[in-house]
């Protein structure tokens, strides 16, 4: 089952260990990019880091805030299926700390923000 067809819970670094082998969506700021271009580090809204691994090396300069979709490995790294840059080119910076607060809200109220499809009729 493709990662795209599943729900991809929005999480931050602290939650990685609870989502081993599950599809997730991680938003963070690019910190370091490995010379191979297949590994990079993101920092979340709490300033904590996460490692992201790609199948193919990056073919572009990465900076700013990224949204990564992938599965969490049992080492706690994110095996990315895709990423997209949250553009700030309109001059409006993305507030990562606020996004982190919103993350906490949606996890506090799963009944109002489900990351799953209910199968009842």
């Amino acid at each position: 089952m493709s990662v795209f067809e599943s729900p991809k819970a929005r999480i931050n670094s602290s939650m990685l260990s609870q989502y081993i082998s599950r599809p997730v969506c991680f938003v963070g700021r690019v910190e370091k990019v490995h010379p191979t271009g297949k590994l990079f580090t993101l920092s979340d809204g709490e300033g904590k880091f996460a490692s992201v691994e790609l199948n193919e090396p990056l073919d572009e300069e990465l900076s700013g805030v990224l949204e990564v979709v992938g599965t969490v490995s049992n080492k706690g790294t994110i095996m990315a299926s895709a990423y997209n840059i949250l553009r700030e080119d309109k001059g409006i910076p993305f507030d990562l700390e606020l996004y982190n607060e919103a993350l906490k809200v949606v996890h506090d109220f799963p009944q109002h923000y489900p990351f799953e499809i209910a199968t009842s009729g």
Partner: protein
Amino acid sequence: MWNQGGGYGESNSGGYTQSPGGFASPAASQGGEKKGRQRAQQIVPCTVSQLMSAAQAEDVFKVGEVEVAQITIVGIIRTTDKSMTNIQYKVDDMTGPPMDVKQWVDTEDPSVDSTVIPPGTYVKVSGNLRSFQNHRSVVAFSVRPLEDMNEITSHMLEVVQAHMLLSKPQTSMVGGGGGMNTSMASLSRPGAGGSMGGGYSGGSDMSANGLSPSQNQVLSLIRSCPDAQGISTQDLKQRLSGMSLAVIKQAVEFLSNEGHIFSTIDEDHFKSTDNDD
């Protein structure tokens, strides 16, 4: 703060109110409102997962207790498909598989932009939820690329807030947030000294003067009595056949404590303080 434009377009106080009679129920109707079908008038921020899981009865969709017809979602375009008459997108907001979004293209109207928005673009979709042969989709009247990515964050918060507010009235008081709290605070002033329980008995039925429907009914009957000695509790009971004596006495006590009425010849006769003569 995050954006002044479309993001808050639907979130002014009028947008979420499901019941038109929420704050203005006339004293005349006693508990008669909210019976029968009410067409939802709101546009509700949702997640794709909520839309896919929504229960369907005939042509009415419900997410829990919240009726959804017109909705907004915020997600990233995964695929596009353009035909002569429409553009079909698959929009992914991470809560489930991508949602099918169809936007009709008016080929005659040059002012309508029929340019396909490319995959990888974050958009806000406003439209109606549809189901055809068990397959859910959205027919959009607006698909707008996001310029401010903070709208992703604001949509997440708006979804939780809207669904909380639109769910059972009792819980909406708790989860109301800033806007609800200020309006309830101003209404609760008349009831502040007296029985809060009585004042909130029909929480969502509060009228503009801060009195519940039953209190308003008792008050208007007392006001309308021209006799010098006022109206008696027995008379009130006779005229308000739907109200128990206990409720009438509770209302009378509250109104008296608040200064709306006063007793006259004895403890069972009352006149309104509003009459001037």
